[in-house]
C-alpha cells in the first residue's frame, strides 16, 4: 500500500503537486470570488455595524490561515527533525512568508474594520497584540532561513526555532490576555455579543475560509516546488563543480 511518506521523495512530490497545485489554485479562486461577491453584494448590512462588517469575509479567513500556517510550519518542522524529509523542511520554509502575509492582511483588515467601530486604527487589544507578536515571530523565522547558507543547517535551526517559538507564541497569547482584557469581540463567529451570526453571513464566510485554505495550499505547493527546483539546480551545480 502506498504510504503518505512516499511524497517525501522530491520526485514524487513534484509529480503530485504538479496537478494538485493548479487544481487547488482554481478551486481557491472560485470559492473566494463566489464568497466575496456573495458576501459583499448579496448580504444585508448589519444593523449596528453597517456595511463595514463585510470586511469580515477577508479578515476572518486570513486570521485563520495566519495561525494555521504557523501550525503547519510546526508540524513540518517536527517531521523534518524526526524523519529528515527534505520536502517537509522546504514546505515549512515556503509557508513562512505566506503566513506572514496572511497575518499582515488580518492586521490591516482589522485596522480598517476597527476604525469605524472603535474609533481608532490601532488598539492594544490582546488579539491584535497577539497577531502583531505572531508577525514578529514570522519575521524572525524568515530572517533565520535567509541568513544561513547551508540548507540542512538552516532547516535544523529554523525547525528548533519554530518549536521553541510556538511555545513562546502561545505564552505570549496568554500574556496578552493577562495584560489587557480587550475590546475585540469574542471569536466563534458571533458578530455582536449575544447574537449568533446569521446563516446569510455564515455561508459566504465559510466559502471564503475554504477558499483561503485552498489558496494557502496552492501557494505553499508553489513555494515548495520553487525551493525543490532551486535545490535541484544547486545539486546539479555541485556535481558539475565536483566533476571539473
Amino acid at each position, binding site marked *: 500500500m502506498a504510504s503518505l511518506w512516499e511524497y517525501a521523495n*522530491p520526485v514524487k512530490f513534484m509529480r503530485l503537486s504538479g496537478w494538485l497545485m493548479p487544481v487547488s489554485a482554481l478551486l481557491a479562486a472560485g470559492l473566494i470570488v463566489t464568497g466575496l461577491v456573495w458576501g459583499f453584494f448579496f448580504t444585508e448590512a448589519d444593523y449596528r455595524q453597517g456595511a463595514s462588517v463585510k470586511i469580515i469575509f477577508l479578515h476572518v479567513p486570513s486570521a485563520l490561515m495566519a495561525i494555521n500556517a504557523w501550525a503547519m510550519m510546526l508540524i513540518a518542522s517536527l517531521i523534518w527533525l524526526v524523519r529528515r524529509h*527534505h520536502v517537509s523542511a522546504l514546505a515549512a520554509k515556503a509557508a513562512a512568508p505566506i503566513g506572514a502575509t496572511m497575518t499582515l492582511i488580518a492586521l490591516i483588515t482589522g485596522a480598517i474594520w476597527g476604525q469605524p467601530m472603535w474609533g481608532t486604527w490601532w488598539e492594544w487589544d490582546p488579539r491584535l497584540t497577539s497577531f502583531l507578536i505572531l508577525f514578529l515571530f514570522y519575521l524572525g523565522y524568515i530572517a533565520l532561513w535567509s541568513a544561513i547558507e547551508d540548507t540542512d543547517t538552516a532547516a535544523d535551526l529554523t525547525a528548533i526555532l519554530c518549536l521553541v517559538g510556538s511555545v513562546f507564541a502561545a505564552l505570549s497569547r496568554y500574556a496578552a490576555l493577562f495584560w489587557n482584557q480587550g475590546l475585540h469581540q469574542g471569536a466563534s463567529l458571533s458578530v455582536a455579543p449575544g447574537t449568533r451570526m446569521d446563516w446569510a453571513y455564515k455561508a459566504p464566510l465559510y466559502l471564503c475560509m475554504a477558499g483561503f485554505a485552498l489558496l494557502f495550499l496552492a501557494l505553499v505547493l508553489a513555494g515548495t516546488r520553487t525551493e525543490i527546483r532551486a*535545490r535541484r539546480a*544547486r*545539486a546539479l551545480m*555541485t*556535481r558539475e563543480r*565536483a*566533476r571539473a
Partner: protein
Amino acid sequence: MVWLGGVRRFGYAGFMELRVTDLACARGGLPLIEGLSFAVASGEALVLRGPNGSGKTTLLRTLAGLQPALKGEITCPPEEMAYAAHADGLKSTLTVAENLSFWAEIHGQRDITGALEAMNLTDLAGRQAQHLSAGQKRRLGLARLLVTGRWLWVLDEPTVSLDAASVALFAGVVRDHLAAGGAALLATHIDLGLPEARVLDLAPYRAELPPDLGFDEAFL
C-alpha cells in the same frame, strides 16, 4: 620526564584501539572521503597525509564527534579522544596557568605543573595569553592535551607556527605519550621526527563523484 609520572599514575588502562571501518564523511554536503578503514592502537602513532582539501580536517572532526559520519563505523567513542585543531581555545585575558588549569578542571584533573614543564612553559605561567607569541600559544594549546588524561590524541596540524626546537620538544612529548600507552592520530605536512609513526595517505579514499552526492542526491 617529570609529567610522565603523573600520567602513569592515572594510567591508560590496558590495551586500547581505535578501529575505523568503511568510513565516509562529508563537508558542506559534499562527500570528501569514502571507504576509509584503519586502526590505531595503544603505543602507535598514525600520520595522515594528503593534499589540501583531501578531507584531513573533516575526518578528524568526524572522529572527534563534532560532525556526523555519512556512514561507517568508529569503535572508539569521542569521550576517549583529545582533539586539537588550528584554534587553541585560549582566552587572551587569562594567564597561561589559568588557561591550562581551566581545561584541566574541565577534564577532572588538577595538576598542571607537569604539562607546563613538558611544553617548556613554566617560566611563562603568569603571563597573559595575549602577550604570548604564536609559537608559545601553540605550545600552550598542545599542553592542554596533557591535562585531558585521554589516551587518543587527535591532532590537526599540531606543529603550525612551532620552530624546530619546539617541534622536537613536541615530538618528545608525543613519544612519551605513546610510551605511556597512549596513541596519536596526526594530520601534518612536516616530518615530526617520529620514525615509528605509520603514514596513511588519504588520496586513495577520495570520494568518487558522481553519482553519490550525499544528501542532495534525492533532488537529482
